[in-house]
């Protein structure tokens, strides 16, 4: 900390803010990706896209 000089708090705040914003973005995108993949797999397993036997 002392190696960063008198403005250490500003330097650490910058990196902390960047890590927080980027970390939140990464988590949000990965969670969304996983949720959509799970929902799609469930629908495909139920045969949601296939035509019904009545031919309608």
């Amino acid at each position, binding site marked *: 900390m002392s190696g960063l000089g008198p403005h250490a708090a500003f330097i650490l705040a*910058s990196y902390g803010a960047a890590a927080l914003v980027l970390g939140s*973005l990464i988590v949000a995108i990965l969670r969304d990706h996983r949720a*959509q993949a799970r929902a*799609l797999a469930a629908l495909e397993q139920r045969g949601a896209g296939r035509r019904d036997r009545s031919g309608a």
Partner: protein
Amino acid sequence: MPSLTDLANPTRFMRLSAALLPWMAGAATILLAIGFYLAWFVAPADYQQGETIRIMFVHVPAAWLALMLYTMMAVSALGTLVWRHPLADVAQKAAAPIGAAFSLICLLTGAFWGKPMWGTYWVWDARLTSVLVLLLIYLGIIALWRALDDSGRAGRAVAILTLVGFVNVPIIKFSVDWWNTLHQPASVFRADGPTIHPAMLWPLLILALGFTLLALALHLAAMRAEIMRRRVRTLTILEAERHDRLAMQGLPA
């Protein structure tokens, strides 16, 4: 090498992006690790700004990426309106939160750099204000996507807004030349070459490349999620219609 037309097929895009993603994420991680090592342990303190120069290694790539992602969105907007590329509005929608995040990082790190160097977190000068406008445009685009249910209509409306907002990109770039601002002029992309010492320039360029690969990997992942969301929506509607038909015929679903 697949062309843009080849990638118009979402199934092919999903296959290719699944193969590319781990490599891009891995390369981004390695470049960011090398870049931060050089930035923190090899690059010297600045003779005027001291250790606060370390903020530059995050602030500058974030600023470049905020502009690059908006430019990508403007190209995607042309893809939506002119070429009607089926993945153009997906690319545009996926890029907006990533561009907004880098704009926010640019503004926050700039404020934390500004206070010890300029004596203030914020000043309404041309560069800072135009970057704030960029963040607001990004937020407006995200809000417009959420406001309209029909993705086709939303895509066209957002494309027009994106192209109108693109006028802000050259304003941000040249604001330090056109107006008398507190912000320093360009010191890397200059006609007479960079004015930064190589000991600081190399970590900066390596980090910029690392952040770019990270942003592109996130963009691919967000595009994949959006394609799956649309497929889920279509299949949910098809499933509901099928259940309705079977119920009308008195058959089990």
